[in-house]
């Protein structure tokens, strides 16, 4: 699978840091989205584009921070999927702001052993 450039047309969103692991069955994609609850993640697949959006809950009235480094904008990132990936079989889990997507290869694309008759 390949990554889209890390530029983001929507200036109000931030690009989450990503890690791609290669497994025998496909790929695992991890995205860092701290501050986003499990039910505020939107994952969509259109043609070969996988789009992930993470929305932060609306903040209640709070004082201006004395020191601020955290970017409180929503997250958005798109990935172009390898044709070998079975988009219908993608699964996702969210643990402490870390979104993990399992992207399995389609059965036809998996390596297989051929026994010599």
């Amino acid at each position, binding site marked *: 699978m390949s990554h889209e450039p890390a530029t983001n047309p929507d200036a109000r969103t931030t690009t989450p840091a990503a*890690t791609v692991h290669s497994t025998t069955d496909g790929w695992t994609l991890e995205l860092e989205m701290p501050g986003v609850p499990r039910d505020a993640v939107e994952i969509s697949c259109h043609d070969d584009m996988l789009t992930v959006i993470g929305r932060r809950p609306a903040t209640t009235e709070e004082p201006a921070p004395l020191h601020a480094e955290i970017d409180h904008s929503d997250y958005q990132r798109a990935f172009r999927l390898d044709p070998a990936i079975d988009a219908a079989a993608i699964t996702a889990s969210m643990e402490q*702001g870390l979104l993990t997507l399992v992207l399995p290869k389609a059965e036809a694309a998996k390596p297989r052993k051929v026994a010599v008759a």
Partner: protein
Amino acid sequence: MKLIHYTHNHPGLTAWSPFNRLATWADLFETAFETGHGAWAPPLDLLDRGGHLEVRLELAGMKREDFDITLEDDTLTIAGRREVSNAVRNERPGGSFSRSVTLPSPVESAQATASYENGVLTIRLPKTEAAKPRRITVGNN
């Protein structure tokens, strides 16, 4: 993250030399390899909520027990370590981190609490009675 300690091999030498201020190679290597990708610092916010101070640190994918939070005098330090395994492509920093913040007012350290939810560590530090804001009314003369 670790401070680089400067070595002074020639304490008697007074002439200025830029090389005296260089860290030893061992120090440089230690710093470079400790985090794998160089030092990293998760972002931190500090808020004054009137009765208490709030420190927030954003760091996804940690476990509660992985944080080491200490309060010494007016300095709050949050340290920890995150393992990041080998990957085809990795943008997530890993290794040890440590963030310190000087608190702007005295706090009741015994009543400080911390929670970790959705990848955000929130530390609540109640102010001492003397440090809490109070309203002063103008009396009648």
